[in-house]
């Protein structure tokens, strides 16, 4: 069974300066699990992608609130949920294709591809005009001696 052993919730305005704060907060929350450095780095990268999407796309021309929560489960896996009440995504499947972007020249269209590569599972729900929710799931291996 996947029982929740710890959880946290936070919210912050969609200012780009909070992208670093968000991944730092997740990282601090998970440090007690003593995770492998690489696993934690992967999850941090995925969180950065999801939060940046909320900032850059969800709240494109405005500043809104980004909601982030995390759960640690008894089996050592972690859920991180990033939610915005921004513009939403018309076609989620298309948005998740590598290299697809509506962000113009400076965006690579790789955010979702990175989330999928660096996590075990990525769940996206979105409604145009209502917002987007991204749940990242990753099992974190515990550090053993010498790692």
């Amino acid at each position: 069974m996947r029982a929740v052993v710890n959880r946290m919730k936070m919210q912050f305005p969609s200012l780009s300066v909070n992208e670093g704060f968000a991944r730092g907060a997740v990282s601090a929350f998970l440090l007690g699990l003593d995770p492998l450095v690489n696993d934690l780095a992967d999850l941090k990268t995925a969180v950065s992608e999801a939060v940046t999407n909320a900032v850059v796309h969800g709240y494109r021309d405005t500043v809104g609130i980004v909601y982030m929560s995390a759960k640690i489960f008894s089996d050592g896996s972690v859920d991180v949920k990033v939610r915005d009440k921004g513009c939403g995504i018309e076609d989620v499947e298309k948005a998740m294709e590598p290299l697809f972007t509506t962000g113009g020249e400076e965006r690579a269209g790789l955010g979702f591809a990175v989330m999928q590569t660096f996590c075990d599972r990525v769940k996206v729900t979105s409604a145009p005009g209502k917002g987007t929710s991204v749940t990242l799931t990753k099992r974190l291996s515990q550090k053993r001696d010498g790692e």
Partner: protein
Amino acid sequence: MKNKAPTEIGKKYGQAPVYWKQMRGLSFFAHIFKKFGSDTMNLRLELKNGTMTAALSGDIDHHAAARVREEIDRAAEQVRPHTLRMDFSSVPFMDSSGIGLILGRVRLLSLWQGGVTVSGLSPQLRRMAELSGVGRLTKIEDGNERKVEA
């Protein structure tokens, strides 16, 4: 200095803009070699034999990339270097915004047939680069010269 009452010294500093105006013709050098404060601008620019090196530091995410991009472009458009070397050896973290930063500079340099070289990638950054295929458009040098732990 700015907030100080106009003392003798204050007046002297007040003349500085005139001095800078006279320097204008040469000022892009001053601009390019300027060292930026570490937490506001994660960038140091150097020019040598037509190669411009952009030494990045700190986390390169969307927030940092936006600022770094402006500074690199302003200098590169003036100098038009044949190579832009982007040095990531002091970058502990990068997400896809960093890939966008590299690809955007490839596009810019191609305007005058210049190219981009990427160096100093940590294993984590290297994974990101591999995933993006950015290696097809840039030269990626070995990452043995890392200055910070990732």
